[in-house]
């Protein structure tokens, strides 16, 4: 379980996160949604140790992430950020290989090789393994980064807007993959996303954030109501049921 306890962060006196308390149970996919500036990515960054909170604590199965050794955490929690720019010239396989760093410290064993191959195959990248990252399309590059996260072989995975800049086909494919990873591999995955309908269809739980606070947390059926969404996005939103799915119309 990821336990977020009264985490606060402010920049120049402006609260970005205000005493956020949130428990993400083990297993399943949780979507974190909310308007721009709600603090979704900030919260994910704090859980991922990229940002340091002003106050509060984050625990992973009871282990305090602020004090736990980096490599220990990295073997249990993987983070994929929004922008993944690297100046280094890497092949897809090199990049995915970095996922093994917390386990092997750069000396890849045959076991690491097998993990890398598995992650590549899982994302359908086996044929592109020796391509350089700058020779790939945006969707392929995103898949390569997710493969690296999978190769890290952690129980918990945090993804910050992995569907950004992807067309419908690739977004649906990545979402299906996230579902599969949670189902087949038993991962606990938290995803920041903007597409409410995608979140409702693909996730087990939805966390709604607004103005630095968690305003709602529940199953898609509990969250997908017109009044709740309208209030959060300050826009009239209607929710309809269609083919067993809840769809937000706006």
């Amino acid at each position, binding site marked *: 379980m990821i336990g977020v306890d009264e985490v606060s962060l402010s920049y120049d006196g402006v609260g970005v996160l205000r005493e956020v308390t949130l428990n993400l149970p083990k297993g399943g996919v949780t979507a974190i949604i909310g308007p721009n500036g709600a603090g979704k990515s900030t919260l994910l960054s704090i859980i991922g*140790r990229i940002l340091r909170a002003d106050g509060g604590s984050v625990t992973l199965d009871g282990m305090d992430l602020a004090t736990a050794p*980096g490599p220990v*955490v990295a073997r249990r929690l993987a983070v994929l*950020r929004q922008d993944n720019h690297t100046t280094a010239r890497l092949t897809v396989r090199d990049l995915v290989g*970095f996922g093994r760093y*917390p386990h092997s410290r*750069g000396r890849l064993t045959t076991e690491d090789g097998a993990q890398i191959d598995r992650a590549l195959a899982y994302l359908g990248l086996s044929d592109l393994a020796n391509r350089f990252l700058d020779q790939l399309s945006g969707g392929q590059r995103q898949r390569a980064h997710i493969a690296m996260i999978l190769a890290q072989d952690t129980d918990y995975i945090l993804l910050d807007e992995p569907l950004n800049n992807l067309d419908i086909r690739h977004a649906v494919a990545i979402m299906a993959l996230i579902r599969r990873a949670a189902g087949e591999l038993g991962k606990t995955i938290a995803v920041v996303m903007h597409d409410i309908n995608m979140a409702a269809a693909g996730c087990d739980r939805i966390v709604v954030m607004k103005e630095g606070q968690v305003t709602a947390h529940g199953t898609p059926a509990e969250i997908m109501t017109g009044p709740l969404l309208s209030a959060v996005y300050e826009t009239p939103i209607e929710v309809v049921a269609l083919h067993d799915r809840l769809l937000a119309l706006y």
Partner: protein
Amino acid sequence: MADAVASTGEARAMRPALALALLACAAVAACAAFMTVGARGDWSFILPFRGTKLAGLVLVAVAIGTATVVFQTITNNRILTPSIMGFDALYILLQTALVFSLGATQTTALDARTMFLAETAMLLVFGGLLYHWLFGATARSLHLLLLVGIVFGVFFRAISGLLQRIMDPGEFLVLQDRMFASFNTVNHELLLLAALIVGAVCLGFWRLHQVFDVLALGREAAIGLGVAHARMVALALVLVTVLVAVSTALVGPISFFGLLVANLAYLLFPTARHAVLLPASALIGVIALVGGQTVLERVLSYDTALSVVIEFIGGIAFILLVVRGGAR
């Protein structure tokens, strides 16, 4: 070599090793040529005379080559170098301030090694502050970084210039001796200490090469992979600063040499592995410096022109990189 974009895993492992071996041969050849070309007269004079110079050149090449690659890795930027960020200008300022406040006789009386260590310590403090401020909290734009570096460089040089103008002409001569990049007047007293330091730092770099590979992915990815980013970057920066101090103490400031050498290494070796990039950049540095000095000094019989040539070519490379970086 440049298009060694290998298609199989085996070739990927082989080719850099082969290319590195070739570079090593070229570097050894350059050193041999430096020692022998145009040698007339007594070998018992020539060997120690040229040997000291050669040792100095090799140390500088290795120090600048590896320091630049590591600096560019931790800053995630292939245009910045320690020199462009004003590190060696500060070293000159420290030298000037010392001669100015103590006087030339006092300064000359000081042990060169003690002085060197003290100046390196001061440089470390500055490097730490600058880095903390520039790269600490939030990522700043490349152009701001460049601008700040250049402004710092000019600032340090201007203060040095002011002190030099108002100091005693006799003392200025002593200082001048230490200031200009000259590969002919390698500082002998520091050679052994410098060799020990460069050796130790290179050993440190080698033990950290896999950490550098991860740091090259950027801060967030490195933290995600469990690398203690802040601590590792601080350690790398200390090592880089020590190398810059060694090189500046030996031959004086050479701004664009590191940029040239590091980017040649990236060009020849399309890899992100520091196990390859670090030795490659050191070897290219040796070839450029020792080979260049041999050609200019022995074949063309110029005296101190190498630093000028390197700065000229390096400056052009710098402008090209900035223009290309801006276009991207």
